[in-house]
């Protein structure tokens, strides 16, 4: 694996995340260090309430960090303006859309907003980019449908296409597989893997599908109560990292199959 500086897209140094209140800081996780490279698919896993969402929210600048630094394309996130960040990082969230009355094309084309003029008119180049995004996700035929007509799986693909049309180096997805059935969970994650390969974007997602993530990701960020470990899935298995993820009396990690089993 190459690790020269040019390929590092996102880097966290001595990062501490949590919530600021007037009296004191509530630290969710601290001493976070990792480097994410171009073209990688990275899965962020950990138990409920461990701080996955807080970490993602901090990385996408929705929430301030408590201390430490985040670098995107070697620029400190704190010094990056929203408009500049919009051309480097796009997001897919779990939150509901305000309006589902937009057509799929209209919604995906909103991803071009950082590049369009004051009224948001699409140039020919923008339209090409939007159509490319629709094709990459295989939803060109849904183009004229309205979002309220779509299934959860289709809507998730549309949101991914919207992030793609924003033409950024990084896409961050917060639990992209919730509400989806087994097939669509695998489909979406496989799609992300293909997109990372084809578009050379860095794709970071949080998920509870640890089994699937182990099979598909280049790198995984594992959040345990004590620290955050960033490594290749095979190394993580070898080092027994997944064993410390959940209390052992309930479920245990089976190294041979690379999946969790209920303890008998």
């Amino acid at each position: 694996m190459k690790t020269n500086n040019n390929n590092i897209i996102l880097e966290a140094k001595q990062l501490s995340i949590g919530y600021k209140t007037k009296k004191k800081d509530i630290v969710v996780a601290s001493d976070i260090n990792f480097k994410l490279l171009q073209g990688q698919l990275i899965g962020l896993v950990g138990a409920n309430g461990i701080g996955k969402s807080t970490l993602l929210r901090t990385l996408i600048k929705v929430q301030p960090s408590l201390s430490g630094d985040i670098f995107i394309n070697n620029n400190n996130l704190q010094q990056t303006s929203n408009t500049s960040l919009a051309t480097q990082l796009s997001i897919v969230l779990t939150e509901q859309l305000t309006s589902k009355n937009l057509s799929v094309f209209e919604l995906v084309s909103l991803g071009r907003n950082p590049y369009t003029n004051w009224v948001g008119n699409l140039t020919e180049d923008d339209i090409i980019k939007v159509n490319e995004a629709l094709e990459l996700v295989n939803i060109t035929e849904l183009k004229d449908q309205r979002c309220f007509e779509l299934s959860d799986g289709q809507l998730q693909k549309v949101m991914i296409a919207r992030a793609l049309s924003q033409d950024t180096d990084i896409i961050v997805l917060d639990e992209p597989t919730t509400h989806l059935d087994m097939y669509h969970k695998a489909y979406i994650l496989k799609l992300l893997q293909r997109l990372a390969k084809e578009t050379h974007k860095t794709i970071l997602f949080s998920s509870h599908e640890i089994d699937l993530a182990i099979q598909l990701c280049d790198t995984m960020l594992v959040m345990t109560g004590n620290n955050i470990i960033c490594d290749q899935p095979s190394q993580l298995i070898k080092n027994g990292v997944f064993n410390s993820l959940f209390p052992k009396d309930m479920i245990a990690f089976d190294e041979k199959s690379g999946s969790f089993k209920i303890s008998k």
Partner: protein
Amino acid sequence: MKTSKTYRYQFVLLLIILAILFFVNISLGSVSIPTKSIFSSLFGSIDNETWNIIIRDFRLPKAITAILVGSGLGISGLLMQTLFRNPLAGPFVLGISSGASLGVALVILGSGLFGGVFAGLLTTKWSIVIAASIGSFLVLLAVLSVSSRVRDTMAILIIGLMFGSITAAVVSVLSYFSSAEQLQQYIFWGFGSLSNLTWTELLIFTIIYSVGMVISIFSIKALNSLLLGDNYAQSLGLNLKKNRLLIILATSLIAGTVTAFAGPIAFIGLAIPHLTRQIFTSSNHKVLIPAVAIFGAIVMLVCDSIAQIPGSDYILPINAITALVGAPVVIWLLIRQRKLIF
């Protein structure tokens, strides 16, 4: 390749309807004037001086007021519904109309407190306009200062509603100590009125309305981003706080002046955006802003024409007509479509 609909035919049709209704509205009134004379009075001059005055100084300003009020309230409603992600939001959710009501109530109902000659001065038309403006402006300032501190958009909605409750309570207390005559005057203001605006008043109205409209037009891109939700909008490079302030400012300017000059006209602001979405089936503000403006003007002209009860001397309160005509239409549309497009 067509990428998004432009709705050219709908716009042309609506503009033609608007033009026709504008002339119909001018031709209606307690004095019947032949159509030919109306045209020649508008575009040249006629010998009948009384008709000239009726058309130029009464009916024309009233028709223009109707257009400004209808389009203005419609746009404010649209802005608020998108900003607050709430189909029930209208131009008055920020407490603008309550602020205006409080100002007017203080002038009309509170005039007894000042007493004597001073009271006579206070209850002129201009004093009511100024009181309504100051009232809504003060509430606006309070909401703006709060919204620059609060991150959650929903909190602003609740705060606006709370301001409304407070002012309503003050108005109740004032009413309790007022004379029947004062109460009647206050209630009459509450009916809303499109008539009696002089050209000077109309000019001031138009200027403030235009400022609000220009801000709204410059907010089109921000409004479209907000359709995705606050976090998505921010990830698209939108300065959330700044744009939210601008949208609230535009709404306040428009709805504030409308209320100052025409009274608290309910219903239009809430209903017009929904009716427009049924016709244009779009959420894109590039389409919706002009569509809502034209459609709001049309509905207001129709309501005003009905309020005059053609052929009679009576003018019904415009506030009653807007809801009487509009509410059944909204209900019918929703039942027919079985779905609220938002």
